[in-house]
């Protein structure tokens, strides 16, 4: 088969798997698991073949036009360069791991068939985004992901948190998608085509009339999808979904789509200095804010969610300094270690019966109960904190190195302001990242207090996947940084000495300070409450997690917050902790700015409908009703009355006829 055929099959197979899973889910339950696992696995194999054949050489382009669609043609186009080939492999790996893990995680879930089908559809949509060479086709995948995330985040729709989170995720990303759509149209109108290659050609010839407006509009969609400030608020709440979904959304799909989109169209953004600086500011605010918020979270998955936002901030930072190689490199390594972190967190939540770090820090021996999760999570956290030689170190250093290049004036594309912003924010965030990674590790695995509950061994499907993902988390960065430039723009990704020393140094400082704070506060944990624990610890992992999420707010008074004096984050953040725990009140601000006006408008419309429009309708009904009641009075039941009336009528008619006949 030609490479093009293989590439078409890559997004198609999971799509067919999803369709078959939805159709056969009820009638043939035996096929559900193979249908869930095999299509992503095959897609992964095909994506790997495509990547090998592409080999970082000339981009593979293929296109066909189904039907003429008016002024600017929409074509089914493939555009597979090094970025697309590698990101597709990452998506395949993570999706396959998630599907395998889900067979264990949701093994008793009655809604598993539709869940697995939606995950496959999600994967297919992301692969479509990755391979598509036409922006409208890309948008199709982009929006399918939006609706899939709505369904998957709301998987536990019995709980109000999940319902609210799914609606929030959908609405906030759509808020970004509206300007995104307008931006796409503006871009296509300027460039005369939706094809990425033609747009990039037009940009190279200076054919864009309004690069700043287009770039800023597109940026809004990217901010929504990739959870960048100020549209990031949906992502921490999306933790109400099952853990494998979080892993999928956070590692390889959805949030990666935004970054990947900018990487594809980077020249468009580079043609506007304002857009690049906006991107840098956005990245910096996102990084710092999410780092602080992650230090204050109590839910283990919310820590990871804020960490995802922060790491995406690194990627947008790299894009702001015009180095998409570094951004996609970080996307790849982050995809591997963040998927691992989430899947391991799922194992921990199952074993501990709670998602609260405060509760975990009061359990002894949790790390022995889930030794696989302990070791793999340690690897992933080291990668997250960018400690050499783990993969996160290389990718993060390539980002910082790119920023340093811009600061020292080695590149002409990016403004040096963007470089400074990214570099400073990146280094500060490195401290915070190491801090919250250390805090998570210490609180989850080094608790003291009662013995951790024993719920038996974790399913093999859940633990094997962790080790599979641990390999790239450990080694991908070190092995790939020499090879990757051939696949990408050819720009060097080797860590520079200055940023390596600075980055690792600040990361170590963050880790050590957190450790010291933990030693200081850990004695307090003896006289603090034990956390919420799931009611059915013997159930499957998904049930335990749903119960843990549902019981968190009633026990602690908030989904993100726990009154735990033994939390080192509380000591480190000081008075800031209260604000960081609720994401710096951004939700409250949005509630005041958008939610309440909309609700007020809704109640006004409701009033107009109920009281004004309804009154006319009711009036129109009441008048005939009144007349009817009056006429009904004539119905006395006395036959003689009727005959009398008949006679009277006859007489009147006769007299009238007589008068007319005589011409009076």
């Amino acid at each position: 088969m030609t490479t093009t055929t293989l590439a078409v099959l890559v997004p198609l197979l999971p799509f067919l798997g999803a369709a078959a899973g939805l159709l056969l889910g009820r009638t043939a339950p035996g096929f559900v698991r193979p249908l869930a696992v095999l299509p992503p696995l095959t897609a992964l194999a095909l994506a790997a073949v495509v990547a090998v054949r592409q080999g970082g050489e000339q981009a593979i382009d293929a296109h066909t036009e189904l039907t003429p669609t008016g002024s600017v043609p929409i074509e089914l186009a493939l555009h597979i360069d090094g970025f697309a080939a590698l990101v597709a492999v990452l998506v395949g790996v993570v999706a396959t791991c998630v599907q395998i893990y889900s067979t264990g995680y949701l093994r008793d879930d009655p809604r598993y068939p539709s869940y697995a089908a939606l995950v496959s559809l999600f994967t297919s949509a992301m692969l479509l985004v990755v391979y598509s060479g036409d922006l409208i086709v890309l948008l199709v995948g982009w929006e399918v992901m939006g609706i899939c995330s709505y369904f998957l985040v709301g998987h536990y729709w019995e709980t109000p948190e999940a319902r609210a989170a799914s609606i929030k995720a959908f609405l906030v990303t759509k808020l970004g998608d509206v300007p995104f759509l307008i931006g796409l149209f503006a871009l296509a109108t300027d460039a005369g085509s939706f094809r990425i290659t033609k747009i990039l050609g037009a940009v190279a010839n200076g054919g864009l009339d309004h690069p700043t407006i287009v770039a800023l509009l597109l940026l809004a969609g990217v901010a929504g999808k990739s959870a960048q400030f100020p549209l990031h608020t949906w992502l921490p709440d999306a933790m109400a979904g099952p853990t494998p979904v979080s892993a999928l959304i956070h590692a390889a799909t959805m949030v990666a789509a935004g970054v990947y989109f900018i990487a594809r169209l980077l020249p468009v953004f580079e043609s506007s200095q304002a857009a690049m600086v906006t991107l840098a500011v956005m990245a910096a605010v996102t990084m710092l804010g999410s780092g602080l918020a992650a230090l204050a979270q109590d839910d283990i998955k919310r820590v990871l969610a804020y960490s995802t936002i922060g790491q995406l901030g690194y990627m947008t930072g790299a894009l702001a300094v015009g180095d998409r190689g570094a951004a996609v490199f970080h996307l790849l390594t982050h995809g591997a270690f963040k998927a691992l972190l989430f899947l391991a967190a799922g194992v921990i939540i199952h074993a501990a019966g709670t998602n609260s770090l405060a509760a975990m820090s009061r359990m002894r021996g949790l790390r022995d109960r889930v030794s696989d999760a302990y070791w793999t999570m340690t690897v992933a956290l080291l990668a997250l904190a960018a400690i050499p030689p783990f993969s996160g170190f290389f990718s993060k250093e390539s980002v910082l190195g790119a920023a340093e290049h811009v600061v020292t004036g080695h590149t002409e594309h990016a403004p040096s302001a963007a470089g400074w912003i990214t570099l400073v924010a990146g280094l500060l965030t490195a401290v915070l990242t190491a801090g919250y990674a250390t805090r998570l590790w210490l609180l989850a695995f080094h608790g003291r207090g009662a013995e951790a509950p024993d719920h038996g061994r974790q399913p093999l499907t859940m633990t094997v996947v962790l080790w599979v993902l641990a390999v790239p988390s450990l080694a991908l960065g070190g092995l790939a940084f020499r090879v990757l430039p051939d696949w990408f723009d050819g720009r060097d990704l080797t860590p520079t000495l200055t940023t390596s020393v600075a980055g690792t140094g600040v990361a170590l400082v963050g880790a050590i300070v957190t450790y010291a704070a933990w030693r200081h506060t850990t004695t307090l944990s003896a006289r603090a409450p034990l956390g919420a624990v799931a009611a059915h610890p013997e159930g499957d992992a998904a049930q335990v997690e749903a119960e843990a999420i549902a019981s968190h707010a009633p026990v602690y008074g908030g989904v993100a917050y726990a009154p735990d004096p033994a939390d080192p984050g509380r000591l480190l953040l000081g008075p800031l902790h209260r604000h960081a725990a609720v994401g710096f009140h951004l939700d409250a601000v949005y509630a005041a700015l958008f939610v309440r006006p909309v609700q007020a408008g809704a109640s006004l419309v409701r009033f107009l409908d109920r009281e004004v429009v309804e009154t006319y309708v009711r009036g129109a009904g009441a008048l005939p009703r009144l007349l009817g009641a009056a006429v009904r009075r004539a119905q006395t039941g006395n036959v003689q009355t009727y005959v009398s009336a008949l006679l009277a009528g006859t007489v009147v008619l006769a007299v009238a006829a007589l008068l007319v006949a005589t011409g009076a």
Partner: protein
Amino acid sequence: MHLAYPTVLAALLFCTGLYGVLARRNAILVLMSVELMLNAVNLNLVAFDVWLSKASRETLHSGQALTLFTIAIAAAEIGIGLAIVLAVYRNRGTSDIDKLRDTAEGHESEGPDSDALTAGSADGAGKAEATA
């Protein structure tokens, strides 16, 4: 005989019948009044038939033929009507029209029998209208 006599007699008969239909309470008397009205019409038919055939304008005697029809139908009608009245009387113990008001607005039917009664009195009303 001048045409005025039978027509005046018919008018008197008809008015008597009409009065009976409107004013009598007993259903049997109402039926008898209906018969009076029918016969007034019969009288008219025959009288005019004779008058018209004298003037040689009509030789088929269709008025007399129609009278025969009316008599036959009146016999059938009175048979059914009396049977209904009898049934009502057996059921209710009265044949007073004023008390048979089941079709009145707001009337709640008491039992399965009232449906049949309602139909019966409605029939009577319909007949009264037809004959009036």
